[in-house]
């Protein structure tokens, strides 16, 4: 039927985000509750599951254009938009936002995790109050994709980063009301929203419930209209289905790749043979069947099709060592490599597998250790507290690490530069291959999608063959809502971009 | 002998045993006696011979397990106490029959004020206000010669001296003016002047109320001064019973005889005290492995073959003087 106005959407939240400033966070714990407060220049269509270039629509921008040999991206801005505190929105706000992201302004973010996204941006220029241009060093078609991410809201100039962390002001469909750490986050309808008739909801209330079982039980008991998006694991999904058969549930990939980070700067994994053997020993299907009861995806760096835009086709994937269907044959090969490196049935290699003390990290690590046993590697789990994890990795104080890499947008630029370029802060393995890096730039500048795909596949294959950072699988998770909740779309190739909630309504 | 109607307490063939892991312990074995109104019956005997257990049996307070009254009857003012249910017995305890326990230190509740403990005893059986009860309590403390009774009433047992504690016990036991008072060594912790006062007090109250008194004591002097009749116990059995005069004049059991001889005397002027006291050699036998015959035989100078084989029955040797000895008539002469 026709959307109805009104109602407060009750949702639980999986944990308490550190602050309320999307730009200072790197977790969708922040995006989910605070995306509704903001608008981007452009955004992925919120009612389509797959994020694609051609799905990007203007938001605070009315239109955009690539000019100057594709080196300048110019936006025409919407007029008459007001910040939640009543101040008008202008191009200055856009400039402020991105200057700050590039670290060029007086005021600084406490942390600025996506600074690298704007590496190719020279500067931002404005032309009057309602036109703004991004001037690039070289063409980068996927900049638009990055700008369409839920991670890229426009911030007001007149509010300090500190205030944005505690009381965010945006132009979005919902206004921030309050955030009680560990307790709740409340948003209310922005009656002055520039988009007529939106949002439908009177407000959104998040109750923070870190304990999953309690949260799911509460959902089943009808205390919530919706689960936290993508937080229902496959086993729990069965549970929800059996207890609340009417609930609507979807299972989608969330573009988080579980991978092994290998310390190739120190023995034994400085030996490519051992790295290869390890890659060959992986039984990806087993991981998926244990973790997702079969509902996960095998792939390379990029999320595999059909949900992923850039993943290698199956045939190509199976040519990569370790991806072949015959696990035993792979392992035989792996054993040979191990023997070549001097290990065998009576000389096992002892390694430590470090990982964070969170089930989604720990569980695959346990499986990994078990699988490594088949090739003379005795793994021992080394659980590291989150607080110490990154510094440990950064110190290279590990042998193998089991890691999760989430991709904000399904775009190679974001993924490759961040994780595989020499010297990138998130390139934990210090993998550095100048040739491949050149290929990164080539694909980045390619405007023809089909050609670019080819390039990306080749890069991805090479990365896997080099055992740079073996990808084990791409996770899938579920989200559920009560049948009367309408207009929810869970993105199928990203878990960061689909939470504007201006189209959501309740049929009650 | 007193008339039937005057009988306050009649104990018949009382048997109390302890079931212990080392065997059956016959603490009280076939003991009978009666107490009439206003009469004082003294029970004497070697320590450990079952005097306290007898008293506890009368109150039905023998710890169970391991103890159990396994036979006989206890009739108080016509009711068989052993047949009462626990609630009925409660109404009797502390009211019609009350007891002064042997060890005042541990018999008083350490966390309750003395006064409150007496008040409780009074209010359990009498329907009066706590204020009245309190004044009765203070009055009782005064009666037992506790100085500054009002203040002492507010003190805790550990703040009193041993004698005062004992007096507090007495006050508690007498608070309800019972028909039968069992006093288990009530004055051992007192000095003689106070002992005289207390005994006089107990006897006064006894006379006034017609209370029957069972007095358990070691002090034969006290027995001589207070009791009308005496029971002598040995190893759980009554071995002799007589009026006090008869007993002191001519004991008919060698054990009694030995006791008498052991009494030290305050030296009267001019008479030098004997260096050593007479004593009965040997010790009380274990109550588990009692000899077949007379339990006293191994320590007895008069013992004959028969004593070891056969337990002598309690026989009346004239004038209600009962004694359980084959050679009762020779006892006085031998000595």
């Amino acid at each position, binding site marked *: 039927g026709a959307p109805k106005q009104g109602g407060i959407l009750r949702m639980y939240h999986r944990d308490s985000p550190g602050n309320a400033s999307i730009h200072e966070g790197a977790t969708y714990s922040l995006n989910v509750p605070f995306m509704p407060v903001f608008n981007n220049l452009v955004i992925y269509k919120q009612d389509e599951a797959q994020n694609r270039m051609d799905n990007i629509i203007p938001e605070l921008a009315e239109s955009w254009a690539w000019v100057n040999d594709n080196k300048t991206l110019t936006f025409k801005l919407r007029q008459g938009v007001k910040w939640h505190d009543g101040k008008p929105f202008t191009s200055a706000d856009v400039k402020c936002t991105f200057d700050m992201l590039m670290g060029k302004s007086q005021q600084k973010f406490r942390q600025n995790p996506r600074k690298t996204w704007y590496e190719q941006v020279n500067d931002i220029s404005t032309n009057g109050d309602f036109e703004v241009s991004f001037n690039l060093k070289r063409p980068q078609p996927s900049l638009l994709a990055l700008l369409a991410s839920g991670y890229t809201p426009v911030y007001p100039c007149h509010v300090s980063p500190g205030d944005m962390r505690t009381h965010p002001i945006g132009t979005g469909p919902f206004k921030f009301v309050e955030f009680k750490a560990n307790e709740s986050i409340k948003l209310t309808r922005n009656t002055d929203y520039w988009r007529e008739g939106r949002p439908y909801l009177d407000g959104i209330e998040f109750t923070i419930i870190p304990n999953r*079982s309690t949260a799911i039980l509460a959902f089943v008991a009808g205390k919530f209209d919706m689960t936290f998006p993508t937080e229902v694991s496959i086993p729990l999904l069965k549970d929800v289905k059996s207890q609340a058969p009417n609930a609507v549930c979807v299972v989608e990939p969330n573009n988080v790749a579980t991978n092994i980070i290998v310390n190739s700067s120190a023995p034994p994994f400085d030996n490519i043979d051992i790295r290869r053997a390890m890659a060959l020993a992986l039984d990806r299907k087993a991981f998926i069947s*244990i973790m997702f009861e079969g509902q996960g995806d095998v792939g390379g760096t990029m999320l595999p099709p059909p949900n992923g835009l850039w993943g290698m086709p199956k045939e190509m994937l199976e040519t990569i060592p370790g991806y072949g269907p015959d696990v035993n044959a792979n392992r035989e090969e792996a054993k040979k490599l191990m023997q070549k490196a001097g290990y065998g049935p009576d000389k096992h290699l002892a390694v430590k597998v470090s990982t964070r003390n969170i089930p989604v990290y720990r569980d695959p690590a346990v499986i990994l250790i078990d699988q490594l046993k088949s090739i003379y590697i005795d793994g021992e789990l080394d659980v590291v507290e989150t607080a110490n994890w990154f510094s440990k990795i950064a110190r290279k104080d590990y042998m193998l690490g089991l890691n999760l890499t989430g991709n904000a947008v399904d775009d190679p630029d974001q993924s490759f530069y961040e994780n595989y370029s020499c010297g990138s802060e998130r390139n934990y393995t210090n993998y550095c291959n100048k040739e491949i890096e050149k290929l990164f730039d080539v694909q980045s500048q390619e405007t023809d999608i089909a050609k670019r795909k080819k390039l990306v596949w080749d890069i991805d294959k090479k990365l896997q063959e080099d055992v740079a950072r073996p990808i084990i699988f791409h996770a899938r998770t579920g989200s559920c809502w009560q049948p009367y909740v309408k207009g929810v779309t869970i993105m199928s190739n990203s878990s960061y971009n689909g939470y504007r909630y201006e189209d959501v309504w309740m049929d009650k | 002998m007193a008339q039937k109607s005057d009988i306050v307490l009649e104990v018949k063939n009382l048997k109390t*045993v302890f079931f212990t*892991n080392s065997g059956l312990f016959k603490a009280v074995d076939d003991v009978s006696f009666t107490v009439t109104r206003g009469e004082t019956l003294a029970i004497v005997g070697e320590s450990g011979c079952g005097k306290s257990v007898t008293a506890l049996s009368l109150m039905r307070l023998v710890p169970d397990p*391991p103890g159990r009254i396994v036979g006989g009857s206890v009739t108080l003012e016509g009711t068989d106490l052993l047949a009462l249910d626990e609630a009925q017995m409660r109404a009797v305890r502390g009211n019609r029959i009350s007891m002064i326990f042997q060890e005042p230190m541990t018999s008083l509740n350490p966390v309750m004020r003395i006064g409150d403990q007496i008040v409780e005893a009074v209010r359990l059986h009498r329907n009066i206000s706590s204020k009245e009860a309190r004044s009765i309590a203070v009055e009782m403390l005064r009666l037992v010669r506790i100085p500054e009774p009002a203040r002492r009433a507010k003190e805790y047992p550990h703040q009193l001296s041993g004698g005062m504690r004992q007096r507090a016990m007495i006050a508690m036991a007498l608070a309800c003016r019972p028909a039968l008072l069992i006093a288990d060594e009530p004055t051992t912790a007192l000095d003689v002047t106070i002992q005289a006062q207390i005994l006089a007090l107990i006897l006064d109250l006894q006379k006034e109320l017609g209370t029957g008194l069972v007095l358990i004591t070691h002090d034969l002097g006290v027995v001589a001064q207070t009791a009308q009749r005496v029971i002598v116990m040995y190893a759980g059995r009554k071995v002799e019973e007589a009026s006090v005069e008869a007993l002191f004049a001519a004991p008919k059991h060698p054990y009694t005889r030995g006791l008498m001889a052991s009494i030290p005397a305050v030296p009267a002027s001019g008479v030098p005290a004997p260096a050593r006291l007479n004593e009965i050699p040997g010790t009380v036998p274990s109550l588990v492995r009692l000899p077949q015959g007379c339990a006293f035989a191994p320590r007895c100078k008069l013992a004959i073959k028969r004593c070891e084989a056969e337990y002598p029955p309690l026989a009346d040797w004239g004038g209600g003087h009962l004694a359980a000895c084959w050679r009762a008539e020779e006892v006085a002469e031998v000595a």
Partner: protein
Amino acid sequence: MAAIDFDVELRRAGAHATGGWRRVLFMAQRHVLGAAGLVIMTLFVLTAIFADFIARYDPLTVDSARALARPTLAHWMGTDSFGRDVFSRIIHGARISLAVGIGSTALGGTIGVIVGLTSGYLSGWVDLVFQRVSDVLQALPLLVLALIMTAALGPSLPNVIIAIAIPLIPTVSRVIRANTLALREQPFVEAAKSIGMSEMRIALRHVLPNTLAPLIVLATAQLGSTILTEASLSFLGLGIPEPYPSWGRMLSESAAEYVRTAPWLVIFPGIAISLAVFGANLFGDALRDILDPRQRG
């Protein structure tokens, strides 16, 4: 008067039970629950010792093919989501859970007794200082300590044991101290002093045995609760790390996801924990009764 069967009564009092075995048997009959507790504890300890022989599968081997199998003849208690045999994991888990339980109780208990005795017996300044220290320990909540320990040292078995043992110290020492304070005033302590016993010896010979009853109750209760504490720590992700099967973690992690879909994952570790705690406590109660001389009749 109902007839009294002397033999039965004597038997009940244990008069027939002379000599070693008969005595033990008698005690077992007299304290049925305690005997049950002892049997349970013994079984668990044996299980822990001979885990390698009892377990039918390797507790760590992952097998996706048999994941989440229901209890069958092959897998008596089913398998977990990794396809690991739950029975084998529980058998091996006994080692860890008992190590935590016994280890931390023994550690915390011993220190607690020493502190409590010294503190209560010597009183005065020693008492004040010890009590302040135990105040400090007590004011640091268990989980704060555990968090800090695991963060600083990594979550390992010894660290978990220490982290759980520390908060036991003030608990035990306070109970012991309270008892000691009362006992110190007892005449038999004075008597011991009068024969020239050293304070230390009085504390050990006279005061300690008289605090044994509460101590045993407390220790066995704590033995159980430390196993539970480990479970709680696991629930918070701070217990013994994967893949070693501590009961607490088996329970706490399955509880969330599988309580309805694969209940055997939750039921069996739960039963193991409860049984162990139960056994320890039952045994403790009985031991308390047996050690009380006044109960011996």
